[in-house]
């Protein structure tokens, strides 16, 4: 069973975020009987023997770096990065399908690492570079991974496609010349219902051959 506070199930090496309040910390906090100071910000609480900042309840100001732009919003601490992207910033490329880290359709990059944005709290994604599928096209030209998806008919209904594009890009950045075994392993975190895997496999082969 995966750790609930690991935002990055595809990369077991990734360290959980220690700067903000992780989902697990939040659970610990809410499960403890704590004394909150009556006045003054930020609110602090003792949790697991440490002083931690308490955000919310209610909306708190947040600031993000999304596709190279600084964006601000007032959000409840319980809002996921996925919902913030979709509902606040209308970046709807990342899709909400399972909403619990099982299907990969919400994949975005956080400091260049692929994450399931449904399983990252928005508040945790502050001070990190957030990259979504919308940023991959440059000067009206498709990214080589995107072009390879077009060439190899790697989308049908297309609902899983943006998540797959981001996952494939991140995968190919790390494995420019993947073996079939690498592909099977590295892209098993995204699911498709129409059955486009054959095209996706060919698309990856095309990029690996030509180079991204």
């Amino acid at each position, binding site marked *: 069973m995966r750790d609930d506070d690991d935002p990055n199930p595809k990369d077991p090496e990734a360290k959980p975020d220690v700067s903000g309040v992780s989902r697990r910390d939040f659970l610990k906090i809410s499960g403890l009987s704590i004394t909150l100071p009556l006045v003054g910000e930020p609110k602090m609480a003792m949790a697991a023997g440490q002083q931690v900042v308490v955000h919310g309840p209610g909306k708190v100001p947040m600031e993000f770096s999304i596709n190279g732009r600084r964006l601000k919003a007032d959000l409840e601490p319980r809002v996921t990065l996925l919902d913030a992207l979709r509902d606040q910033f209308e970046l709807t490329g990342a899709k*909400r399908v399972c909403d619990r880290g099982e299907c990969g359709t919400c994949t975005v990059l956080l400091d260049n690492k692929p994450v399931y944005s449904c399983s990252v709290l928005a508040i945790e994604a502050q001070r990190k570079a957030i990259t979504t599928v919308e940023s991959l096209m440059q000067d009206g030209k498709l990214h080589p991974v995107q072009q390879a*998806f*077009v060439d190899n008919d790697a989308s049908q*209904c297309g609902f899983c496609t943006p998540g797959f594009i981001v996952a494939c890009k991140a995968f190919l950045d790390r494995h420019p010349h993947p073996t079939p075994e690498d592909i*099977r392993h590295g892209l098993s975190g995204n*699911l*498709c219902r129409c059955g486009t*895997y*054959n095209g996706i496999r060919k698309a990856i082969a095309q990029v690996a051959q030509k180079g991204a």
Partner: protein
Amino acid sequence: MPDYAWPDAEHRTLIGKRISRVDSPAKVSGQAKYTYDVHRPGMLYGKVLRSPYAHAKLVSVDTSAAEKMPGVKAVHIVQGPGSTIHWEGDEIVAVAAVDELAAEDAVRAIKVEYQQLPYLVTDTEPPQGSAEGQGPLSMDDIDDMLDNQVPSQQMVNQIQQYGITAKPSEDTLKGLKSDGATDAVLDAIRAAAVHPDAGSRPKSNYQKSAAQTLGDPDKAFAEAEVVSEGLYGVPLITHCCLESHGSISEWTDADHLFTHISTQNVSGIPGQMAEPLKTPASNIRVHQDHVGGGFGSKFSPDRWGIFTAQISKKADGKPVRIMLERAAELKVAGARPSAYARVKVGAKKDGTVVAWQSLSWGTGGPGGGGMPPIPYVFAVPNQRKEHTAIRNNIGPARAWRAPNHPQAAVLTMCALDDLAAKLNMDPVEFFGKNLDMAKPRQNIYREELAIAADLMGWKQKWHPRRQNQSGMVRGVGVSFHTWGGRGHASDCDLTIHPDGSVELKLGSQDLGTGTRTCILIVAAETLGLPIEAIQLQIGDTIYPPSGGSGGSTTIGGVSSSTRRAAVDARDSLFAQVAPALNAQPDQLECVNGRIGVKGDSSRSLSWKEACSKLGAMPLTVRGKNPDKSKPPDLTNSGVGGVQMAEVEVDTETGVVRVTKMVAVQDCGLIIDLKTAESQCYGALIMGISYSLFEEKIMDPGTGRMLNPDMQFYRLAGLSDIPELVVKMMTGKGYDERGVIGLGEPPVISPGAAISNAVANAIGVRVPFLPLTPDRVLAVLGQKAGA
């Protein structure tokens, strides 16, 4: 009379070629907007309180606390006290609030008191003698038959034979018509005997839904030299569309509704919303750019589509979005009925099949469900069949890609494959020998079977079933399938503007099958223009109506209406341009973006110059399908396909891996070979998924679905996909049949082919899909006497 016929092979520049789908760039860049992505100004978010019980009466519903919560804008009781809940997850109250979290908080504050009722959520074999005879049909029974695509004549027979429980209003009949009832069915209902008492009698969970005898099965079995008996089955699975069901509805004024809805049936939605909303269909506008999967589950606005509109009205017409959460999607938004059977088949020593007997059962939830068309493809001359429908609380069923056919393929092809094994025959030889029973497509199957065997390397890979295997074992299996796929009714408007721009409008939808691309290919081919020169508008009720995308009917419908519109538009343009070229209209042709005199390259105009001859007014023509006044019929019905699977089974762990699949498929004239092949690749993959992993697992102890998520309702992933080989049958004998749908056929055979391959590998039949390790180990254990 203009020549509407499809151009012959030498004159096709686009049709039948591999053309990249036109909406790929929008999809790969995240720009494609789905209903789930629509963000309307001031939009409210709806959440739904659902029943935790599979069968219950609602005693009380208290929404007072929820109504007072911050951010809550409207509360709507969907089913109030006294209502009966028939499945877990059924809707009770909907709440609209300023954001999702506020709506969720409000839902949690609603108090409902339930009186739990006895429920049944299993679909195991009915106890002997438990099945009741069919009584008079309720309108729900008839609706269920429509959902299960029971043939019109069969419905008429049943209505005449059993009568109905209540006389329906003309509005109800209208509703049935929009759900697909034919005029013959409606006439039968109007004329049927009414038995009002029968409707109030509590129904048994088990209902005899079919009993048929053909020929003389007793004599045939007595004379058969080899008889094989077995148990086979396919469980209930879900559609699991990645974009869940749902809509965003707003009232643009007191009596006009604007709905974005995730649907396979844009043009057909207003007619279904009109009655429950008491709003004329003409006042309901539906829009959808892209849909994230439907697979047969998105033809209706659904109860939630209706109450989304109702709650919007309560919230002063503000846009309200209700998209189903994943758990709800898997619990309530449709499932494929299960089907199981004890089958006995008999043959002569030479392999000729002479007799079939089946005792089948299955469930489609509260509606029961019909018998799959068994024996499938092979019309065995002597048959006895009985089917029992189980009515239970497993949730509602819906058409699932090729309704009833994948089940029929498993029940038939697996039983016949076991018979082949008992005869010690190679299944390719055995099935080939019996193909005369596969009329009228026996020759297509014969040709496809030989190609499939070659592409699979069947001769090298097949071996007789072996006993007492250990370690990794391999096997191969084969299956056959068929489907109709005639084009549906479709209207389209094609406009040529004086500046040369061309637009095409129809109220169709592209499910990811390539519909947009195919429409444009047909129009561009006909007008001699590049695809990019034509603007296509689909997905809105402001465009001419086009049928719902189900049953593989879209491609035949939209390609035919588009062809007729484009031919008429082209010929009208020729008439206007001919004087300028000093020619008769019938001497003109349009190729490569020019209109010129056939055989005289010196006399031609660019498309733009030619269109300027239209004067100030654009030229618009309506194309239709069907259209008997404009022959020939451009679409057709009836395809055949053969598939083979190769598997590897680990006899230690029971894990089955598919190592290769071959699909050989015909679908008449192919418009876009690239998207046609993708349909087949996708169907093979979907087939691997339901063969190895998918099952809606119900808990008999609580009546709840145990796996309403994507971790335990498992779909195949990239790592489960082997080498896939797709061969589309084209050319003489295929192209001239016209355009036939392809969505359903290739998804029918994988279950049977994979099950047969596993039986070949391990030497024994695993009766039920999915072929999970526990099921494989169970039969291996039985065989070893463990």
